């Protein structure tokens, strides 16, 4: 969708409404995806959708409606639905009027678009995936996984005169390679599909799978772990970004901890919409400009996600939630981290993580697709998978060393070496 076409549509929605406040937003998406299982492609998909939402408010009473039918009659129905519901709604003391251009601030430049990645090219994607399949099949292993390219367009306008537009692309391949009794995993994500080397991604997963064959058992217990970036992504960082109001009301594990040291001083967790490897969005849902925000710096909890309402109540500046998630990397290589470990466990990724106790952020989950014993600075053998039960703040407080950053999905995270990580039970595979 073109920018002017989007703004014209949004302007029409604003024009149709008699509400005191109106905010309209448009999101168009085109996704191409191939799925692989057992060395064949299975689910090969293209989907296109454009969604229009409007929120109307009369005084403090508000409601929203959403449609993907962009015809004039549908737009009228949409506005009527939102206005009717808003009129029936009791006043909401937490409702905030639309963001003004002055309040929004200046939107940062976020270069997140790749023209070729937004182009439908089923033959190219099938050919690249086919090459990856062949590489794995030739070694008598099985490839499962998926490749995708995604193009997003977002625009909004409100009755306070603010409007914004952002477009982004994302290409990805994730590969699970399976052998007789062990598997390996790798993933590559980038803004451009040409930066996703499917052959290399499959090759990395194949190498891990070859190392993972014939796993052996060791007793569960507390071990030093080296968590690769995907394991870090699944377990640690996003739990550290909690809502300020909920936290101030005593309902999150970070209550009373803002401004205090909560974990090892080497931890620096932040968001930066202008990051070149992992560009974010220039504006948050309400329209405020995004900016670099330190969530944890030097081990100190620096910020919580603070809404405009709660900021007004507490006389603070609002802090929009994370537009992306970045943890600063360290000086050491992954090989250095392994070499410095007398006895430990090397973890490729986790699976099925759930919160057991939200008030201590106790998590449980499984290891998956590559688990290895480290002895005297060397990986010595593959292991049967473990279940862990560990608290996020314990793990982040026990960080001994930090490796280099890598992009994993929508995060940019390092490998972490953590002591005394609690594996509570083992599987039988």
């Amino acid at each position, binding site marked *: 969708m073109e920018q002017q076409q989007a703004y014209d549509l949004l302007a029409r929605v604003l024009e149709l409404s008699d509400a005191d406040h109106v905010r309209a937003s448009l999101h168009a998406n085109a996704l191409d995806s191939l799925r692989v299982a057992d060395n064949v492609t299975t689910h090969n998909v293209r*989907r296109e959708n454009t*969604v229009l939402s409007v929120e109307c408010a009369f005084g403090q009473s508000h409601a929203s409606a959403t449609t993907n039918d962009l015809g004039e009659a549908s737009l009228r129905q949409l506005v009527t639905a939102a206005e009717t519901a808003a009129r029936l709604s009791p006043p909401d003391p937490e409702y905030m009027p639309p963001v003004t251009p002055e309040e929004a601030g200046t939107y940062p430049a976020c270069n997140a678009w790749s023209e070729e990645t937004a182009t439908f090219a089923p*033959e190219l994607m099938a050919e690249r995936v086919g090459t990856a399949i062949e590489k794995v099949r030739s070694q008598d292993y099985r490839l499962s996984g998926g490749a995708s390219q995604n193009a997003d367009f977002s625009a909004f306008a409100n009755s306070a005169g603010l409007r914004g537009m952002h477009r982004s692309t994302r290409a990805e391949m994730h590969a699970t390679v399976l052998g007789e009794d062990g598997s390996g995993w790798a993933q590559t994500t980038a803004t451009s599909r040409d930066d996703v080397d499917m052959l290399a991604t499959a090759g990395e997963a194949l190498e891990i799978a070859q190392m993972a064959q014939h796993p052996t058992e060791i007793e569960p217990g507390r071990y030093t772990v080296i968590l690769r970036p995907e394991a870090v992504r699944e377990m640690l960082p996003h739990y550290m970004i909690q809502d300020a109001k909920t936290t101030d009301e005593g309902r999150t594990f970070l209550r009373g901890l803002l401004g205090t040291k909560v974990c090892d001083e080497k931890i620096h967790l932040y968001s930066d919409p202008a990051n070149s490897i992992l560009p974010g969005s220039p504006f948050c849902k309400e329209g405020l400009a995004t900016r670099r925000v330190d969530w944890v710096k030097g081990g100190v909890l620096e910020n919580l996600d603070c809404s405009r309402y709660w900021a007004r109540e507490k006389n603070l500046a609002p802090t929009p939630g994370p537009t992306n998630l970045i943890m600063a990397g360290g000086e050491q290589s992954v090989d250095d981290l392994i070499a410095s470990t007398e006895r430990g466990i090397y973890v490729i990724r986790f699976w099925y993580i759930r919160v*057991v106790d939200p008030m201590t952020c106790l998590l449980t989950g499984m290891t998956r697709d590559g688990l290895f014993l480290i002895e005297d600075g060397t990986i010595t053998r593959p292991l049967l998978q473990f279940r862990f039960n560990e608290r996020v703040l314990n793990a982040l407080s026990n960080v001994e060393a930090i490796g280099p950053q890598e992009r994993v999905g929508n995060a940019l995270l390092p490998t972490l070496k953590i002591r005394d990580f609690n594996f509570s039970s083992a*599987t039988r595979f």
Partner: protein
Amino acid sequence: MNNLCQLAIDTTRSPDVTYADARIVEIRNQVIFTEDERVGGMDDNVSLGIGIRVLLGGAWGFASTSDLSRESIQRTARNAVAIASANRANVNPGSFEWADEPAHTAPFRTPCEVDPFSVSLDEKIALLLRINEAVRAVKGVSKASSHMRFRRQHRYFVNTDGSSFETDIFTSTARYNATAVGESDAKTRYFEAPSANAGYEHIQKTPLLAEATRVGEEAVEQLSAPPCPAGKMDLILNPTHLALTMHESIGHATELDRVLGMEESLAGSSFATLDQLGTLRYGSPLMNVVCDNTMPGGLATMGYDDDGVECQRWDLIKQGILVGYKTSRDTCHAMGETRSRGSCRADSWASIPILRQSNFSLEPGETPLTPEDLIADTKDGILIDGMGSFSIDQKRHNFQFGGDCFWHVKDGKIAGMLQNVTYQAITTEFWSALDAICDRRFWVPTGVMNCGKGDPMQIAQMSHAAAPCRFRQIDVGGAQ
């Protein structure tokens, strides 16, 4: 709409295309969310579009669009053919089989006494705010939140088998939470009208307001309850809790696509492999599990699946032995069956159909047994109600579950509340420890609304029914 589906099918026609289907689906969702005395959000969301699927040389191509103009539908149909054609080199056509299914034309509609979208927003808001007020009237409760969600899925389906049908499915849900905040902790307890394919009468028949005080009191009581002991204890699991344990440890493990390795990269595979069909001791002889996509009110009860297969009822586990799987038209041949069980569904017009869990039930006990009898017969155990934390490995073998509320059962009586209970087991050992099931009077379905699977991820719904059960000597307390 059927004509537009037919246009899509006609556009895909070529000698190479061996099967095609087209679905136009309109999904309307209404959500009302309240917190304490305020309405936090109301949204009315309509999503309409077409999904077109073609099978060409053993390769699938699927394309979908929200633009229902004739030109757009024809372009989307050609895209589906192009995607399938591009992937011919990436499949092994010799190993692909597609089961036959008769053509269907009869419409299906959820029995619905009161259309939930015809009930005024005023009435819904008033009920939610009254519930919040009642919950917050309990001393020690700091926060009450509640929501209602209603969905209508109107589907038109046409395929090259000659099927051409229309379905109209209504789903209704209401739920609320009570949160008590203590000096160093916070506890939340919930109550719900479990999601069901039904109209607003489902909300009206559930004692939402009547239970509010109890729910609030139980949230407060949890704050001072002793922690979960560690060791082996008997567990008495209410249906509201057991539904999730069944879903994770039985439901996913018996999806035939997982068993065949088609979900290895995300959801995973299964320990319940095909070579064990008819022999695997899944659980105790008391364990009889029946799949039923014709179950009244079931979230997977929709007349036909998105392969165009009529919904059915079949045995999954008989007297503890694995005897079946959930299947689709492209998987059933692997277990020697010529007809799919009809368990292939898409979560919207935009998604390709994939094999999903059916509704399924743990059959009730045959001899009279009440929950009170079960407690009276238990020397040292824990009673668990409601869903909590859940985690299981990718073969569905090693699991750990929490719950929403817990009571210590001592010498046949409830001896007070516990907090932060978890239990951990290997699936077959857990189900082998099943030694008592209450009778049919206490057998109730619970809906699962957020079952994630597939790539791109799809969210599906299904119902699981059970009566209260007892499991002997399960490991508890290992998480702390």
